[in-house]
């Protein structure tokens, strides 16, 4: 097991994190960009999980596994999302806490 496993692990955690963040932002904002990101995040996270399994268990296939994880990350990053932040702090932005629309009950923006 080489240090590439740690990179793969980091990639997988990052993709899970970004997916959960997109879900959180979608639940807050109900914007179509975040909806798409939350739905497609299932596929990309699955792809990254497969990549991590290959990197972890596949003999001499760390690079292939890492490639799948990076592909997942790349595809997740390509989804166009709306600009939503205004005066939030960096940590709030990072963890997906948005003040732009808290009217979740109405289901409208």
């Amino acid at each position, binding site marked *: 097991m080489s240090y590439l496993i740690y990179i793969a692990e980091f990639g997988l955690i990052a993709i899970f994190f*970004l997916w959960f963040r997109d879900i959180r932002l979608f639940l807050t904002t109900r914007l179509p960009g975040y909806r798409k990101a939350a739905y497609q995040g299932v596929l990309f996270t699955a792809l990254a999980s497969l990549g991590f399994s290959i990197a972890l268990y596949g003999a001499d296939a760390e690079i292939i596994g890492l490639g799948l994880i990076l592909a997942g990350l790349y595809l997740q990053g390509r989804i166009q999302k709306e600009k939503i932040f205004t005066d939030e702090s*960096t940590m709030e*932005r*990072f963890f997906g806490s948005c003040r732009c629309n808290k009217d979740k009950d109405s289901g409208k923006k």
Partner: protein
Amino acid sequence: MEIAEELARKQRSISVAEFFEKNKHLLGFDSPTRGIITTVKEAVDNALDACEEAGVLPDIFVQVRKISDDVFRIGVEDNGPGIVPEQIPPVFGKLLYGSRFHQIKQSRGQQGIGISAAILYAQLTTGMPAVIISRTDARKKAHRFELMIKTEANEPDVRSRQQVDWDRPHGTRVEIEFKSTLAAKKRLLEYLRYTSVVNPHARITADIDGEISTFERVSAEAIPCPKAIQPHPHGIELGTLKRMLSAQESMTLEVFLVENFSRVGKQVAREICEKARLSGEQKISMLQPADQKRLLSAMQSVQIPAPPASVCLSPIGEDLIRRSMDKEFSLDFVAARTRPSSVYSGHPFVVEAAIGYGGKLNADDKALILRFANRVPLLYQPGACAITNTIAGVNWKLYNISQQTLPAGPIIILVHVASTNVPFTSESKDAIASIPEIEREIGLGLKDLGRELKLFLSRRDKKRVADDRARAICAVIPEIAIKVGEIVEKPAPDTQAIEGKIMRKVIAKRRTVNGTVQIEVNNYTSQPLSLKIYDFSPDAATDALPKPAFSEKSGDEYTRVWNCELAAGGTWTARYGGRGPGHLDLQGIEEKQKVVMDLDV
């Protein structure tokens, strides 16, 4: 009958000078190129021996000047005790004349042949006399001799003698002119460099046809001069024993043994006598040839402690070898070992070995092997030497060093054999004979060093892998910062500080918070550092803490300097009241090792 008489008329004795005149290759004068090195070697050896005996730090000057197409003048000058004028002609003009032959102790020269042979070689090739200048005291004038050797009689032939002024308060200068070439100039400088390595207390300055090289000393302590010891019973031969017995016929056997041999006390003497079936009270003049043989056999079979090597030998020492090698070769790794003293045929010896790795050494070459005997470099006949053979006999692959008979790579191996009687293969002292005891000690020393080198190499490889990983991470960090910036919809943060921490650099930060300028310097390197911190700003900073070592206004700006000693992993901070704009700089560290950040920008 007539033929026999005619042959008898031709019979005559041969002087030792005549013998060596005909067989100069035995003394290392087999070619003009080599002659120049042998001459310098003999003169420098004598100079070092003389300084050692006088307890002074050697300051030796070697000069080689071209006189005509193929004639060179060699001059070697030392600051030793000098030679009394009466002794100068025999010392330089007679072969086999010297003070060390009958002493059992470590010394470079022994037989009293070397420098006389060089003078003999000079008069053979150019017919010019050697010039000797020597001064024994600052209150006396120096004596200048021009002398040659009467080869048929092996006696000095003094051509001129006069008192002269000389700039050295004491010392000796030898000037010899002979036919030679400077083809071996590189080797001559190598010889001087290697001599400097094993004589770390000596400063050697060489002027080779106008090109000056200085080999500086690394130790300012004169080495203790080895003291002569008595012969050891295990190293004696029948002829020597007979001579010793005949010289002191009035003694009793027991007293003779106790007084003439090292490590023989009364009890050992009695044991020897018992074993030889002789009485200790017996006068030695009464011993018959058969008794003498029995006595010798008993002397060599009785268990006797090894000779006192610490008295008669003068090893260089691990620390000085390391320092000398580092000075001359600038290595990444140097380790040295001085083995415990050992004995072969009654002669004590000490083996010292050192290994250097990396630095400026060429990785594609074979290992550089430096052989030394009694602090003298051995430059010729490496293949015939026990040192080379022992190095080839070690399995270097076990220590992660490639090997094709001899080890290969950026490696330097030094072996020094110090003994009261170094077993050379010939009189030219080029190679050490294959003595199992010596080879065993060399092997043990090298294996010990090999293990240390292996440890260094494995640590270095681990560090290299860690550095590669750190570099890979540092390459990814800015990309991650950009991505995170995109995610949080903010500009990418400055990642220099994180990179500096990972790459083990010094990071200096300057920021202004609520009207206070803060300066922070972190040393993430593994070395303690002595830094000068420069801060330029329009603020007067009279309240600066700590107070700067220097503060001056130039134009609209103030310049402040702090001197800071920063341990590895340490942090230094300073603060003062101010508005903020300004800039920071560090001195005392390489540019690529520092990161200076202005957080106000």
